[in-house]
C-alpha cells in the first residue's frame, strides 16, 4: 500500500470498519469478512486507487468474497444499495473484473480465520459445531477481528496474530495461556515470537471502545456473549508475563 498516493492507513481503517458493519448487517459467514479484507489488501498492494474508488474496492471485495464463501451469495444490487447508489451495478462488475485480473484469479490466501479456528480447538476452547461458542473462543475471535482494521498489524503473519490472540484470550480469562499442544501446532514458542504481537493486540483491545467501533459494537451483542465488554488484562498483569 506504500505505492498508494491518495490512500493511507486511516482510510483503510474506515473501509474495514464499514466492511465489518456491512458484513454483520448481512449476517455473512466470518470467512467472508477475512477474505474480503485480504482481497482489499492484496489489490491495493498492486494497483493504485483513488480515494473515491476505495469504497467501491471494498464493496466489490465483499461481493467477490461472498460469492466465494457463501451458500447464498449476495447479488450486486445489494452492494449498489449499501453504497447508497454511489456506484452502479456495472461499476461493481467492472471493478470485479479489474480485481480478478489484478489478483490473477488467486482469491485464496490463508487468513487469520483458518488459524484462529484451529488454535482455539487445540487450546480446548472451541465447542462442537452448532452449539454456542465459548466465551474464550469468542474473545479470541474478537481480538483477531480487531486486528483486521489496524494496518500495522499486517506486519505480522496471520498465524502469529491468531496464536497471540488465543494466548491473550486465555490469559484474560485466567487460564493457562500456552500449552505444549499449542506450541506444537502453532510452532510458536511463548518466549520467542508472541511478545510484540501480544502487546499490540492488548493495546488494540484497550482502545477498542474508542474511535471506529464496528467490531466493538458487533461483539457487544448477546449472540457474541457480549465479549467486547470484557476488560483487557491489566498492564501490570501483562508485564508479569514471562516471555
Amino acid at each position: 500500500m506504500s505505492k498508494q498516493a491518495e490512500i493511507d492507513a486511516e482510510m483503510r481503517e474506515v473501509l474495514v470498519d464499514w466492511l465489518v458493519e456491512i458484513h454483520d448487517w448481512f449476517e455473512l459467514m466470518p470467512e467472508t469478512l477475512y477474505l474480503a479484507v485480504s482481497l482489499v489488501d492484496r489489490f491495493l498492494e498492486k494497483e493504485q486507487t483513488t480515494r473515491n474508488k476505495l469504497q467501491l474496492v471494498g464493496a466489490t471485495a465483499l461481493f467477490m468474497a461472498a460469492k466465494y464463501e457463501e451458500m447464498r451469495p449476495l447479488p450486486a444490487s445489494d452492494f449498489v444499495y449499501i453504497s447508497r447508489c454511489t456506484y452502479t451495478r456495472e461499476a461493481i462488475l467492472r471493478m470485479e473484473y479489474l480485481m480478478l485480473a489484478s489478483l490473477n484469479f488467486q482469491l485464496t490466501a490463508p487468513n487469520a480465520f483458518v488459524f484462529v479456528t484451529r488454535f482455539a480447538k487445540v487450546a480446548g476452547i472451541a465447542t462442537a459445531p452448532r452449539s454456542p461458542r465459548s466465551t474464550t473462543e469468542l474473545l479470541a475471535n474478537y481480538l483477531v477481528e480487531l486486528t483486521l482494521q489496524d494496518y500495522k498489524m499486517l506486519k505480522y503473519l496471520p498465524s502469529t496474530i491468531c496464536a497471540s490472540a488465543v494466548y491473550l484470550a486465555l490469559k484474560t480469562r485466567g487460564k493457562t495461556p500456552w500449552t505444549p499442544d499449542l506450541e506444537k501446532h502453532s510452532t510458536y514458542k511463548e518466549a520467542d515470537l508472541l511478545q510484540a504481537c501480544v502487546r499490540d493486540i492488548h493495546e488494540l483491545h484497550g482502545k477498542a471502545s474508542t474511535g471506529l467501533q464496528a467490531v466493538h459494537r458487533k461483539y457487544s451483542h448477546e449472540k457474541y456473549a457480549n465479549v467486547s465488554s470484557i476488560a483487557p488484562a491489566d498492564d501490570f498483569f501483562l508485564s508479569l508475563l514471562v516471555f
Partner: protein
Amino acid sequence: MNSPSAEAQRGPPRAEVNPPSRQRLEHAASPDSLASLPSDLLTLVADELIDDTQCLANFAAVCTRTLAAVRVAQRATLSTPQAQVVRLIGRPMPSVSRVQPCGAEGKLDVARGQVGNKRLNLGFLPRASKTPVDKAVDTVDKADASDPQCIVPYLQDIYRHYREAEVRRPACRSTMHVHTLAHAPTRLPRSASTPRRRT
C-alpha cells in the same frame, strides 16, 4: 444390349475384389500386416465375402488371430515398465492377466458403478492398513476421527500448506506513510429503516 443411360444408372464400375484363398489369408495373419489395415477396408472385404461362407469364416478366423496377436504384443510392451516398477518399489505388480472380468457373465452393472464392460478385481491387492492413520491423528482431533467431513488425515497437510502459503504470499507488509486526513471519511451510517437481509 446395354444403353449408355443404363450404364450411367449403375454408376462407376466397382473394383473387383478377388476372394482371398485360405493360404493368402493365413499368410496375412501377422499382426503387422492385418492390424495396420483400416477397419473400413476390412468391412469392405467382409462384404465381398458375404456369399462365400467358407471364405468369410476363414477371414473371420484370421481377424481373430490377428487381434489376439496384437494383444500379446501389447502385453509384451506393458511388461517393460512393469519390470521397471518392480525394480523401483521392490515388489511385483499385478499382471494384466490377473484382472478379472466383472460378474459371472461379464456384463455391465450400472447400478454398481462399473465403468465399461469390465471391472478391475482389486481383491488381491493388500488392504490399506488403518494403523498408521490412527497413529498420525493427534489427540486434539481424536474426537473427530470418525467424521469424514473433518478430514482428519489431511489436517496436518492442510495447515502445513497454509503456513507455507502465508509466508510466500503475505497480504502487504510494507510500511505505509501515515498522515492525517484532509477530509472527514465518508462513512455510511446505518439506516434504521433498512431491513436485514437474513433474520
